């Protein structure tokens, strides 16, 4: 009996130690590639992300067609000419929070996360690294990160006629409000 109880308690302890995961389906990703006259920016509010608090694994995925521009023409060019979103419908990031132990998901505070991994856009995968700010308070987990990518790295070609209007790199900003992933 005692042995059974012990086993049960141990298995309980084991489960509570199991990987706690946090996720969102409504992450906000915005980018800006403005260089001169015209603002070239867009955002999506339906990026998915999962963070594993035990291993530090972090994954983002987004449908390119969910990026909304103010101007319809710009959005069409973005999808058809630059991102070829029929051919490459998703953008993704797969990586790791290198200092996951420093982030106390159950303790209120602000934490700097070192994130590194592989970003895939337009069918091209490249390593990227950045820092992300995690803010934990009142049971809410919020993360934001900013980084830049060179468009040429992802084989995104800018025609000569508009090359002075579009920046050679895009500033990307990510904001995510996580929820606990319940099994």
């Amino acid at each position, binding site marked *: 009996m005692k042995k059974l109880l012990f086993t049960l308690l141990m298995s309980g302890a084991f489960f509570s130690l199991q990987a706690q995961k946090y996720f969102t389906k409504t992450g906000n990703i915005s980018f800006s590639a403005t260089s001169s006259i015209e603002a070239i920016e867009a955002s999506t509010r339906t990026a998915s992300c999962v963070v594993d608090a035990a291993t530090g694994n972090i994954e983002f*995925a987004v449908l390119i*067609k969910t990026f909304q521009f103010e101007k319809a023409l710009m959005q069409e060019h973005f999808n058809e000419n630059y991102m070829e979103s029929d051919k490459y419908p998703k953008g993704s990031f797969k990586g790791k929070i290198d200092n996951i132990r420093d982030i106390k998901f159950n303790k209120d505070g602000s934490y700097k996360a070192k994130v590194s991994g592989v970003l895939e856009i337009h069918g091209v995968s490249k390593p990227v690294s950045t820092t992300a700010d995690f803010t934990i308070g009142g049971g809410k987990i919020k993360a934001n990160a900013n980084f830049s990518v060179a468009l040429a790295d992802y084989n995104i070609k800018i025609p000569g006629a508009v090359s002075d209007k579009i920046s050679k790199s895009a500033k990307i900003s990510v904001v995510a409000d996580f929820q606990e992933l319940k099994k």
Partner: protein
Amino acid sequence: MKAKKVLIVLAILGIAGAVYVAYEWNRKNPSMATAKEDLSIDAKALYEEFALNESAASIKYIDKVILVRGVVSSVDKSNGQVAIMLDTGDPLGAVMCQLDPEISQNSEEFKEGDQVKFKGTCSGFMTDVQISRCAVVR
């Protein structure tokens, strides 16, 4: 005399061209509150088509204006946006209808179990079928 006529025609063409360029340049995405739907379908059927054959469903639905009917399974209001999840019968996937922030819509009215209709553009499939810029349909 003939040269003058040619000039007038060229001037008219030039103005028409400029008007067209200005119109195209300033064109906004159509509001789903007034757009006419290309297709209408139940959330469950739409999800099943994507789950079974994503590439065929992509050709059929992506970039189309879809009127989708379903039952609210949850409402996600994080991050200053509202996404309404419609039940598909599959606990792992939903039809996610992201409300257009440009249209004033009262998100408070949507509750789990409500029967709803939304019109929006289909953006693709990634565990959920995503419908962008949704307007509620009465």
